[in-house]
């Protein structure tokens, strides 16, 4: 793609400079003359937005570091002082906080775009992997940064995430303590997190240079996924792509500004305005919105898998969810890049997007929340009005034999005319069976939408019946339920199946739609044309 350089120094100075440091030539070849496919649509403008986000985060971050104090006693106050007293602090702090969210909005769209148009396929595997590395670094940076204000979410988020590493067998605990610099999140942790949070963005900038380098080596993909055939398929990057990027960036800045100026706290969590308290966990710990899907995957594993306990399984699955992206270029077997020509794959892709959103939603919910149930919660209450209570002790010879012994005693009582019997175990082998003889047996069933509602009903009935009934048996029935955890499990299964099963098999079996010979030639009338 690079081809021979077309840069011609215009003045004496630039000719002189070009012989010594061809930096202007590099800039010209990379960002001016660089051939760009004609048919790129607006989904291709997110790279420019991401560059802007990185610059905004670094500049505002450097400014924040001038005023921030990485000390457990002063961290939150120093952020407050920045917002209240430092000139324009009220503007720059929300820019940094909102900027993180904007960065992730842009990166997710950028990634889904790459996924849809097959931008990870040969010869762009390294380009895609470098992108995944950047994403991983972004996640790490965001997590470290969220710790710095030292609010409740900072503290407990850091606690939970470092505890994930403790799930690793044998070395987990040592790694955890090494990372925290102690046995809990504390001053040493805050100090090192601050240092690393300052460092990582520059690493991201470095990998971004590699990412752009790889992009310029392979050339940009385009909505048809067809390779650029000739110069006629392309336009120079400047001004064509530059202008379009600038326009899109300007729209992006409008969204950014709406959040900074009118909803600076909408994307954050109220609990992070409460100073960190190691003695009290907030009622619910949730990460920032952009990590919620992974959080849902982590919590989806509430069962052990063979020798792997549920905690480790969740941790492994969470890391695998990102790790699998690195393998994507080799998991997708289709020879067609763009899903525009893969109608079936496109449907699966759209479901995948929905699944990611649903996972995000699940991550923010109480995992035990019931989403659907087959029928109401209910309980059958049985009691006897009047009658006489009889009692018989149970004594079993062994712990395992208790049930049998109790059943025998029950049988015996029933033989004496008892209509209702109940067993109360009072030890490993001891117990008592009570029964009632005579009286009128009463039964009532109560129902409710929640278990609590049923309990309330039971209490009411019990109070009504009162001491008149010495015998009161409650049989609770919980309907089969579908909880947030169950939903997360289904979604997690699809997330992994999409990469491990659907893409590999579909690529071999599907019949692609007709692909154009060149990118300039539209396949179906107006479809490719309308792209830009």
């Amino acid at each position, binding site marked *: 793609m690079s081809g021979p350089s077309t840069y011609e120094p215009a003045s004496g100075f630039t000719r002189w400079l070009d012989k010594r440091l061809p930096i202007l030539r590099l800039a010209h070849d990379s960002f001016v003359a660089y051939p760009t496919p004609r048919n790129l649509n607006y989904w291709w403008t997110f790279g420019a937005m991401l560059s802007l986000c990185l610059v905004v985060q670094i500049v505002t971050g450097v*400014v924040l570091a*001038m005023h921030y104090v990485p000390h457990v006693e002063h961290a939150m106050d120093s952020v407050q*002082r920045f917002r209240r*007293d*430092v*000139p*324009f*602090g009220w503007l*720059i702090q929300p820019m940094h906080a909102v900027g993180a969210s904007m960065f992730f909005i842009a990166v997710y769209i950028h990634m889904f775009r790459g996924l849809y148009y097959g931008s990870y396929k040969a010869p762009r595997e390294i380009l895609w992997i470098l992108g995944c590395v950047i994403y991983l670094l972004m996640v790490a940076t965001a997590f470290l940064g969220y710790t710095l204000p030292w609010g409740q979410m900072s503290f407990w988020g850091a606690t939970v995430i470092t505890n994930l590493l403790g799930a690793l067998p044998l070395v987990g605990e040592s790694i955890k303590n090494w990372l925290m610099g102690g046995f809990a999140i504390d001053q040493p942790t805050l100090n090192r997190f601050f240092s690393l949070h300052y460092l990582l963005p520059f690493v991201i900038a470095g990998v971004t240079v590699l990412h752009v380098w790889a992009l310029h080596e392979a050339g940009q993909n385009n909505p048809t996924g067809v390779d650029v055939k000739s110069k006629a398929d392309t336009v120079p990057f400047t001004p064509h792509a530059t202008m379009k990027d*600038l326009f899109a960036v300007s729209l992006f800045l409008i969204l950014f500004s709406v959040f900074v100026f009118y909803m600076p706290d909408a994307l954050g969590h109220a609990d992070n305005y409460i100073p960190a308290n190691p003695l009290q966990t907030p009622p619910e710990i949730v990460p920032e919105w952009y990590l919620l899907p992974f959080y849902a995957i982590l919590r989806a594993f509430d069962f052990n898998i063979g020798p792997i306990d549920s905690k480790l399984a969740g941790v492994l699955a969470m890391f695998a969810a990102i790790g699998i992206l690195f393998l994507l270029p080799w998991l997708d077997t289709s020879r067609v890049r763009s899903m525009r020509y893969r109608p079936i794959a496109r449907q699966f892709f759209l479901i995948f997007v929905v699944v990611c959103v649903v996972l995000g939603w699940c991550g923010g919910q109480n995992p035990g929340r019931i989403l659907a149930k087959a029928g109401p919660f209910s309980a059958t209450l049985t009691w006897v009005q009047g009658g006489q209570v009889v009692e018989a002790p149970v004594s079993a010879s062994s712990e395992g034999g208790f049930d049998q012994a109790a059943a025998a005693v029950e049988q015996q009582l029933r033989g004496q005319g008892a209509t209702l019997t109940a067993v109360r175990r009072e030890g490993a082998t001891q117990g008592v069976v009570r029964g009632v003889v005579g009286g009128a047996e009463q039964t009532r069933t109560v129902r409710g939408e929640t278990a609590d509602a049923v309990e309330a009903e039971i209490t009411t009935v019990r109070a009504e019946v009162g001491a008149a009934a010495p015998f009161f048996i409650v049989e609770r029935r919980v309907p089969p339920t579908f909880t947030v955890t169950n939903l997360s499990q289904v979604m997690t299964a699809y997330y992994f199946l999409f990469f491990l099963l659907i893409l590999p098999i579909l690529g071999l079996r599907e019949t692609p739609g007709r692909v154009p010979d060149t990118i300039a030639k539209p396949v179906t009338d107006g479809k490719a044309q309308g792209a830009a």
Partner: protein
Amino acid sequence: MAEAASGAHEDETTRRDFIFIAAGAAAAVGAAATVWPFIDQMNPAADTLALSTTEVDLSVVELGQQVRVLWQGKPVFVRHRTPAEIASAQRDDYATLKDPQLDSQRLLQSNGQAGRPEWLVLQASCTHLGCVPTFVEGSAFGGWFCPCHGSDYDTSGRIRRGPAPHNLYVAPYVYMNDTTIRIG
């Protein structure tokens, strides 16, 4: 025909140039306006500015004593002068001075009103290179002596000998009432 085409072409050029210049100018203005907050944030913050005044309770300073207070992070002497020191300062009003000033001028409050001879409020930084002078110890004029390079000030804080170019600067102060002054 050729003329008309060229005219249309010119219109086209003008329109295009106008859009580019307008967009470029707008972007430049936006960028410039964005830069300002990032520069201004390094200026003293509101809490720092609020500490730019210091109040001193004079009633606790004994005759012949001085207190050193911090004003804007810098030391200030508030000296309760004895009649002998006042007399000495006034006597030297017309001596040969490097930086001639009357003692009464050195007592002026920042609002222009006259001060009181027994209270002298000086910035405690030697006008040479900024060390804090000591009182009497080493001074041939009964005033302040700078240990760093030997500048010698009299009881009015005027430079009498040594490398310092100016008298000790008077800190801006006003009497808030009989026993309190505000510096700054």
